[in-house]
């Protein structure tokens, strides 16, 4: 039986090279070694060059700026060293603290919700044989809509006086709810809109992952008499783990960066109930032009996101190893 693709493939590169060379010293191998050396670098270089030229400078710049205070006068900037004071100020910033809590809640529920919906939809779509392309096309629709339009449209739909949602629930006999304007429902509404907007992302990736799973594993499982549920838990999920983890990582990072929707739907309110970290960053860094402080906030958020991801990945690896 074929080993699980992911783990085996990870170990493969190191085993692949030597045995071939050791076993068969022939003229073709000399070419192959050269071929490998050239292609090792040639294949990596486009991405390497792009990242080096366009990502390193801005990042270093951001990191350095976080230790300064930037002011402008006479058309020129001056940087005054601020040591760690920008970082210390983060703890006292009410908007930043509220932002962290809301973002963690937002990320947990929104990302969790999207991944669940995306996975279920991908499973269903993979099973049916008719209309797969139609379903796939329909489920992609929400991410085609630009972020700013998503915000504007849902703001109208959730409007207290005239929105379609309140009209619809009014037909069933409920009172209109101030979805975006009352602190108890605002964050939930923003999370819902985000789930609506981003489930296609998870759906597409899970579907692609499911479609590239080897079929013989399923055949073997069926021969062994596994039920649908067992198939799902013991065969599908473990093989999909790399896809799930990467989707989760990128969705989480994107959730921490969510901006368009909050900007248009609630502006961080009511009160601070939908104040998310990226919105605080936008306020401090750009509207208030606190470049040094904003840079420190960016670095702090990145650091926290990294911690979260490391924690999530290492716990997964442990449970994966135990299996």
């Amino acid at each position, binding site marked *: 039986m074929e080993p699980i*693709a992911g783990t085996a493939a990870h170990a493969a*590169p190191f085993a*692949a090279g030597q045995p071939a060379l050791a076993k068969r010293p022939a003229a073709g191998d000399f070419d192959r070694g050269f071929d490998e050396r050239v292609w090792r670098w040639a294949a990596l270089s486009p991405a390497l060059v792009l990242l080096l030229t366009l990502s390193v400078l801005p990042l270093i710049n951001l990191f350095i700026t976080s230790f300064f205070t930037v002011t402008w006068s006479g058309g020129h900037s001056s940087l005054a060293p601020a040591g760690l004071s920008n970082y210390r100020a983060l703890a006292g910033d009410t908007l930043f603290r509220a932002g962290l809590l809301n973002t963690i809640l937002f990320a947990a529920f929104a990302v969790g919700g999207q991944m669940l919906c995306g996975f279920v939809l991908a499973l269903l779509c993979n099973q049916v044989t008719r209309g797969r392309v139609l379903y796939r096309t329909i489920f992609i629709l929400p991410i*085609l809509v630009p972020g700013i339009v998503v915000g504007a449209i849902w703001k109208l739909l959730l409007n207290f006086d005239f929105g379609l949602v309140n009209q619809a629930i009014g037909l069933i006999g409920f009172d209109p709810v101030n979805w975006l304007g009352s602190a108890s429902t605002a964050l939930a509404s923003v999370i819902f809109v985000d789930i609506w907007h981003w489930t296609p992302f998870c759906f597409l990736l899970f579907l692609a*992952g499911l479609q590239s799973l080897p079929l013989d594993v399923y055949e073997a499982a069926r021969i062994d008499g596994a039920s649908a549920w067992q198939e799902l838990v013991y065969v599908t999920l473990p093989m999909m783990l790399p896809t799930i983890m990467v989707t989760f990582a990128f969705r989480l990072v994107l959730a921490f960066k969510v901006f368009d929707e909050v900007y248009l739907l609630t502006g961080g309110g009511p009160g601070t109930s939908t104040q998310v970290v990226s919105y605080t960053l936008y306020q401090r860094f750009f509207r208030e032009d606190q470049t040094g402080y904003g840079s420190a906030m960016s670095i702090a958020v990145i650091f926290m996101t990294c911690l979260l991801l490391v924690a999530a990945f290492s716990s997964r690896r442990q449970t994966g190893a135990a299996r």
Partner: protein
Amino acid sequence: MSAGARGASRSWLAHAALVGAAACVAVPVIWVVLAGFRTQISLLSGAFWFTPVLKNFREVLFSKTSDFLLNYLNSLIVGALSTLICLVAATLAAWSLHRMPWPRWFLHIFLGWALVFHMFPPLALASAWFTIMRSIGLDNTLTAVILAHTVLNLPMALWLMGVFVRDVPVELEEAARLDGATTPVLLRRVVLPLIAPGLAATSILTFVFSWNEFGVALTLTMKQTATVPVAIAKFAQDYEILYTQMAAAAALSILPALVLLIIGQRYIVAGLTQGAVK
């Protein structure tokens, strides 16, 4: 047989669930597209029935202050080229990283750096890039936006293609090597067909992200090079949102992108599975 009947009812249930989900997903989008045909007051007063007007589309496409068709062309060029470059670079790099004998630490640093880069707020990057582009004279060009979008989407494409590349069984690659395949042949004939679904999915996502990207596109462009999201954002004015015109612009933006993706999906998957050597 019982298994068959069970299969049939399961399939019926699956279809029902899918149809329900499709409705949830599609109704707001249809509502947006229809809103492009309404007058603003009919939308704002929450009326359900309305008489369609073409005014919004006319305003969006042909008014003197609108460059929508130009923006559309710009978005297409930027989207297509940045997706192409991004996917080529990411796929090659992912294959190299996971299949070539790189030291472990190099792999982790490269991928880790890409992920950390992905966490940086795009607006902060945008102003740094603006300074670079302006100093070499590339600001207000499509080239700048193409490069920026390529780099922005590279981390995600790199990681995703990494997953799909690792799913290709090593034995197949070894077999092809033993048959004397050089790397280009190996990639074209063995690897590419197997990662086709993943490639299709990643290119769709990359294209859509580029198509809808606002912050960086706004910073690096001016009137002649602006993209569709910049045009759409102009309808959200400081105290009035021109909902119906924004909806018309959004409808114009969604439908062709959808058509392109449907065709593109089939083409990518079909084109790549040709000539697979099994």
